[in-house]
């Protein structure tokens, strides 16, 4: 039995035939849609490396069945830059050395975009750290990550208020 699943990934709507309902959203992205930017770390919802944004919310794609997300809008790390122009959160991670080996970085960046959209971290490093606690970094780049999120948030808020004005 096959399962037909339609997903909009980074703005492109795609219909995928799945021959097995066990495929996670993470494996679908990496193995079937050629989007390996989303990383498989623990595969058990503990490390956050697989974080993507689904219907506006950051989630762990390793603990989501693809077939259950029929109709969803998915944003991955491959979809955040504007052509060659990096997303402000990507820029901030570079500026603040928010990474060392880089494996957790796509998940960190997607989680940071989600956190900033949620709008509850303000300019409080404690709230940023709490809001990012679902993303582990074994290189321990947490200081740079926290600074990057605070900085990117300022840039995005300024851009937003300019749009309004």
């Amino acid at each position, binding site marked *: 039995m096959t399962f037909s699943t339609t997903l909009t990934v980074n703005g492109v709507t795609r219909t995928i035939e799945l021959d097995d*309902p066990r495929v996670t959203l993470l494996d679908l992205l990496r193995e079937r849609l050629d989007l390996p930017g989303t990383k498989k770390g623990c595969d058990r919802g503990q490390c956050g490396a697989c974080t993507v944004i689904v219907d506006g919310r*950051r989630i*762990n794609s390793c603990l989501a069945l693809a077939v*259950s997300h029929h109709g969803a809008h998915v944003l991955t790390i491959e979809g955040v830059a504007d052509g060659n122009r990096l997303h402000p959160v990507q820029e901030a991670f570079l500026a603040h050395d928010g990474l060392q080996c880089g494996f957790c970085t796509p998940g960190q960046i997607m989680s940071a975009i989600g956190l900033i959209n949620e709008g509850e971290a303000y300019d409080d490093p404690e709230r940023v750290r*709490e809001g990012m606690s679902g993303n582990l970094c074994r290189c321990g780049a947490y200081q740079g990550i926290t600074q990057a999120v605070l900085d990117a948030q300022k840039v995005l808020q300024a851009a937003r208020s300019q749009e309004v004005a």
Partner: protein
Amino acid sequence: MNSFDYIRPATVQAAVVAASEPGAAYLAAGTNLLDLMKGGVTRPRRLVDITHLPDLDHIDELPDGGVRIGALVRNAELARNATFARRFPAVAEALLSGASAQLRNAATVGGNLLQRTRCAYFYDVASACNKRSPGAGCDARGGDNRLHAIMGWSESCIATHPSDFCVPLVALDAVVEIEGGAGRREIPLEMFHRLPGDGPERETVLEPGEMIVAVRLPPEAARFAAHSRYVKVRERTSYAFAVVSAAAALRIEGSTIAAARLALGGVATKPWRSPEAEQILAAAPIDASIFRRAAEAALAEAKPSGDNGFKLELARRIIVRAIALAAAGTPERMPALPGSPFATVAGVIHG
């Protein structure tokens, strides 16, 4: 992960029929179920995906002043609902103290009640576990059990229920609405989870095929809004289960506690409400010695199930802390670290 049949019903009634088959399980977000399936801890033959069912994701203010929370409302969505958080602040604080932002964005209200214990021996399929394989024995007894139960446990199981959300819910008289083959019924959350006894594999009163459709809080629950806290000790600052937690809710009139609610997490196979403590607090003055007496009463029946004797003293202190923080008043803004016992309160603790 084992292979399974995948069914996506269009109505609650069709879901109940599909899930009444032996070996069937409901799939909501799957944040716990898929993890268990990846580890081979549970092996359902059929998954009944309820995430596309209509009308189960609403938060409805009821005419009587209560609130009805649909089973598919996401944890984060409920905690961020401004009206809900203002009226039931300890529930919002408990939700935000649990898991990570990613998991809270996915995990559902119904799934939270039905999540399984995080006992390592339950998760490790090479270990003996009466919950996973009835009659197999319990390797947690005599094993690494410092985080296990101190209340309501039995020789066959010493696991704890991991939910934060359920702790203030049970304190505030939440009711679970259930749909099944025989129609709809409802049951107080207090009676929803079962103590292990000699059948720890049966964790709730749900019959095969029965599905949680909503959780309700009565109007009285909102009368504690000005003095409600959830306090949770974890082995790290964030993204960890409770070692011990407490929800305290007070209704204060003048300098007297008019009514009190108290429940504990991380201590038993179910969220543990303490009517004994509530009785001592009711009509008592706001006084630390009363808080200590309430804590002693809550823990009168507590006993270690292994190397976890420290939890008795920890629970005593967390109860006192939760009541003191509730008496000081619900913070105007959600604390940066929800549920943290290390937050300062001016003039009360560390202040």
